[in-house]
């Protein structure tokens, strides 16, 4: 029954430079993960996104970007689903 979600994940992984992808629900339960994205990171990604949303509660959820020298992690919430993408810069 998760075929559609799997298709979305596959599509994202085909994007150039993307190394990992993860989706979680509002409670931090990992719904899908692929590549370098670890299943256990679902909770913390949701928590980071939640805290970022509190900065300006009136606006729509912001995109969180965690950068290192060569990699970047993008986190965004839409409704109750939080997604994370790990990619090379």
């Amino acid at each position, binding site marked *: 029954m998760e075929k559609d979600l799997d298709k979305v994940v596959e599509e*994202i992984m085909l994007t150039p430079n993307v190394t990992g992808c993860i989706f979680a629900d509002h409670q931090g339960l990992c719904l899908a993960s692929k590549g370098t994205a670890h299943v256990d990171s679902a909770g913390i990604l949701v928590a980071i996104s939640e805290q970022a949303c509190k900065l300006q509660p009136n606006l729509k959820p912001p995109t969180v970007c965690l950068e290192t020298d060569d990699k970047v992690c993008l986190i965004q919430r839409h409704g109750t689903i939080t997604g994370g993408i790990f990619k090379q810069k």
Partner: protein
Amino acid sequence: MGCCYSICHKDSDPQDNVPNERTHLLEVPEQHHETPSPTTCASTPPRKPDEQSALNRILHDTATNVIDVGALGPYSLEANAYSERVRAYTARAAAAVLPLPIPAKLIADVPPAASKVILNGPPPDFADKELITNAVKKAAAAISELRVEHHEDLVVPFRVPVA
């Protein structure tokens, strides 16, 4: 008359070894006549000298090995002995090199000068932002389409034939 005669001679017969109708067929030890039943008496087996000496030996060994802390009495250090020990222990502790705990740093503060440079730098890629936004929108749509596919009945009645 013979029967009466044998009763009269009961006392004198045990001294002789002449077997008669009163002689015990099985040699039963005398002490078992005194105890009424074996279960009512205390569980003390007949004390042979070997067992007694063995018990004594075990008791003696335990007594020599046991350290009775309660019976030692008050123990106190003299003032100079105490201060000498403090000195010795602090010297030893200072001399001992403890392995430094490896600090596990996932995130470290950037010094303010460097942080200004980073914060004034270029913003994250717009393309990346679009990527994640579209991705999570599609994923949310896909997850909302999650349905349980009903193939078979979950509850199945057991059709047990009644004979």
